[in-house]
């Protein structure tokens, strides 16, 4: 018997029992759609987190003053710091071969005013390197000047929210504002970033690190951001940082280095596992759909007993009868799986349109796995009814028993 005829016969048989066929297709559709949609949600969550972290810079190492014994736990921001990180430490790190950029970071708070408008601002002291390291973009003007980090130029770059509060709708470029007891000239405005893990860059003012040292009257850095030259360079860069700081701090390991990458891959792993789990739970519904197929096919076999007897009288062999009924189950699961994938894609498309910020998307393996599981369960559960059909005694079957 030809394969095309096998499936043609199955299609006509399915068409002969429309309601039953529709219900079974519905069950399969729900099962497959559940797998694809839930894994798409999981994958969306994973991408959301990964993208948020990528805003921070992917090859980023963060150097904190103070030693933390446990790795991966929250850094001891308020811990005892045996020795401060200084600007000179940062400049020394910039000489590493695996280091692309080094951005020293100071953070403090200062009252800011522009004419009558006044408010307290978070002030960050850094260098030009902060721009590439934190993937910042400018809306207007320029960033801190490149070059000598020791020069305390009286310039400031404002975040978007700060700008509104201090200037309203006025143009800020070239204007002077007061931070603490000093005057700074506004040279640029940051492009508002999406919600990013870490500092909110819309509510700040950025000044050169040397100016910040003078403003806050301290030489100690809050932290140093180091961007390695690539993913592979991260371990070497880390080594270099620890060696350099130890050499500069009289042999003491008194800093903590956190690799952004390690944190990211941990989250990535957790969310991936979560996606698999959710997918596997949804796959249970495919097994349920398979059992439904078995049930309905058993009913079909007993309703079509005479037809099976006839097929045998016409010379159908046992394997042929088995094949005919298996083809029906296979068709049900294949058609159900296809419609399930289409339904899921439709829902995903709808969600993506309704919530553009959430990067929902089914991972490529999800529809493939769902369809494979659907077809397997259809064939597996279709086997029993098909075997029962193939083993019917033709004489009894023709008599309708």
């Amino acid at each position, binding site marked *: *018997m*030809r394969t095309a*005829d096998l499936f043609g*016969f199955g299609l*006509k*048989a399915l*068409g*002969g029992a429309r309601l039953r066929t529709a219900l079974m297709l519905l069950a399969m559709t729900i099962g497959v759609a559940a797998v694809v949609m839930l894994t798409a949600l999981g994958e969306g969550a994973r991408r959301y987190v990964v993208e948020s972290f990528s805003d921070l810079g992917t090859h980023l190492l963060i150097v904190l003053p103070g030693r933390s014994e446990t790795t991966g736990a929250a850094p001891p921001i308020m811990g005892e710091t045996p020795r401060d990180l200084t600007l000179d430490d940062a400049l020394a790190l910039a000489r590493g071969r695996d280091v692309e950029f080094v951005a020293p970071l100071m953070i403090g708070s200062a009252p800011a005013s522009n004419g009558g408008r006044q408010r307290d601002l978070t002030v960050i002291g850094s260098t030009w390197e902060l721009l590439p390291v934190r993937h910042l973009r400018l809306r207007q003007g320029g960033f801190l000047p490149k070059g000598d980090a020791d020069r305390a130029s009286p310039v400031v770059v404002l975040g978007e929210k700060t700008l509104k509060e201090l200037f309203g709708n006025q143009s800020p470029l070239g204007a002077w504002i007061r931070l603490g007891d000093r005057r700074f000239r506004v040279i640029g405005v940051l492009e508002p970033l999406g919600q990013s893990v870490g500092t909110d860059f819309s509510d700040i003012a950025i000044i050169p690190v040397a100016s910040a040292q003078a403003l806050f009257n301290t030489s100690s850095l809050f932290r140093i951001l180091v961007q390695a030259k690539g993913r592979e360079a991260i371990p070497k860069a880390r080594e270099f940082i620890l060696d350099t700081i130890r050499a500069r701090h009289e042999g003491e390991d008194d800093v903590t280095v956190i690799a952004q990458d390690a944190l990211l891959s941990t989250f990535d792993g957790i969310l991936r596992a979560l996606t698999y789990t959710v997918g596997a739970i949804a796959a249970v519904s495919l097994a349920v759909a398979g059992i439904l197929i078995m049930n309905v096919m058993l009913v079909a076999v007993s309703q079509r007993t*005479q*037809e099976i*007897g*006839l*097929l*045998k*009288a*016409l*010379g*159908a*062999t*046992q*394997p*042929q009868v088995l094949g005919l009924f298996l083809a029906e189950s296979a068709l049900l699961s294949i058609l159900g799986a296809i419609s399930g994938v289409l339904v899921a894609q439709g829902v995903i498309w709808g969600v993506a349109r309704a919530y553009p910020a959430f990067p929902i998307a089914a991972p490529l393996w999800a529809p493939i796995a769902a369809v494979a599981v659907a077809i397997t369960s259809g064939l597996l559960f279709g086997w029993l009814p098909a075997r029962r059909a193939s083993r019917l005694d*033709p*004489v009894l079957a*023709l008599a309708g028993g």
Partner: protein
Amino acid sequence: MIRLEAIDRSFQVGGEWVHALRQVSLEIPAGDYVAIMGPSGSGKSTLLNMIGLLDRPDRGRYLLGGIDTAGLSEEGRADLRRDKIGFVFQSFHLIPRLTAAENVELPLVLAGIDPHERKARVADLLRQLNLSDRARHRPDQLSGGQRQRVAIARALAMRPAVLLADEPTGNLDLTSGREVVETLEGMNEKGISLLVVTHDPAIGGRARRRIRMVDGLAEEGA
């Protein structure tokens, strides 16, 4: 052509053993026209199923076209049945969701014959049986006589050597019944052996040869 040697067959029905065939020996040469008659429960249908390879004897030998069927596997019996035997049933046994043409085509589909060849053969058969204008009708749109003629076309599709008809007129009115019998006889005239199970003496009387079944025993009748 068909040769039965001391065939025995019994079943258990409701706790009792029914001896459906007792020591039945029979020879039917190719092209013969035989009526198998007798009261119900006498073993007529069992004999027909035996000849049609749907049933296996408990004892005895059955040779079809010189082949000893005892040595055949289930698959071998199915193939032989498909190639040599055409069945016509009292209740037609047409598949309700298929058209007349598709029902006739079914044995050819099972045999894996090329679709072009199938279409040609089906069209030819429907023409022979005056059903060309009913090809696209489903069984529920056909009269009883037309249904049985579709079933006969299906039985002829694989160009069998033997036609086995079990009460072919049992569900038909007199006129359609005669039409069906004449159709079957027409096929017999083309050289196909025809075995008809019937309890209608009018139909039995038309056959060249009559076999009377009584309580599992077969006797040659006049």
